[in-house]
């Protein structure tokens, strides 16, 4: 597997502002994804971060609210825009290789976001 460095690890933000979360992988990965996890809940997929093109969003998530960049195979950002308290959650990025025997996801440490 690879190692993903995610930052910030936590932040407290004012409503109406935006926060950008960064993930850096220590090696090239085919796929990168962004998830949201409410405390005690499962992981909800926000979007697939596509290298060099627009991200693919899951139902209920839109680009205006969660713009995503992936300029190369080792880096991606997620921005939570115009935040409200409902956006308070843990945000996780993951990397995944495809084409081989193992297609497991490995995760960054997560960003715990609190919107006040």
């Amino acid at each position: 597997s690879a190692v993903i460095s995610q930052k910030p690890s936590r932040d407290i933000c004012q409503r109406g502002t935006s926060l950008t979360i960064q993930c850096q992988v220590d090696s090239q990965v085919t796929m990168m994804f962004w998830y949201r996890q409410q405390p005690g809940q499962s992981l909800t997929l926000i979007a697939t971060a596509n290298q060099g093109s627009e991200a693919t969003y899951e139902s209920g998530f839109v680009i205006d609210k969660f713009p995503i960049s992936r300029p190369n195979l080792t880096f991606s950002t997620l921005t939570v825009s115009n935040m409200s308290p409902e956006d308070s959650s843990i945000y996780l990025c993951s990397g995944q290789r495809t084409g081989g025997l193992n297609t497991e996801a490995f995760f960054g440490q997560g960003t715990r976001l609190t919107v006040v």
Partner: protein
Amino acid sequence: GQQVMQIPQYQHVQEGEDFTTYCNSSTTLSNIQWYKQRPGGHPVFLIQLVKSGEVKKQKRLTFQFGEAKKNSSLHITATQTTDVGTYFCAGLNYSSASKIIFGSGTRLSIRP
């Protein structure tokens, strides 16, 4: 869309007792993966099952993939306090752009 459900949602056992969590997908899967998330941590990959009816073991953990590749189970024998955490199954379907869809999770707590 694809959904992956797990039961039970919570399990509280005495140390030394066995534990099982069951996973069901609404669609046939290319493979199923299991992850463990410790409190305050991020999910960590445990294992991947690919073949219909496959069974894999990791020490006290036994993983099974159903014949129809739509269900799976994780069984822990003689639980230890280090087993505490939430166990997620996660289904991957290559026809769905290789996205991994996580199950609802089973939170395991243990009485010493």
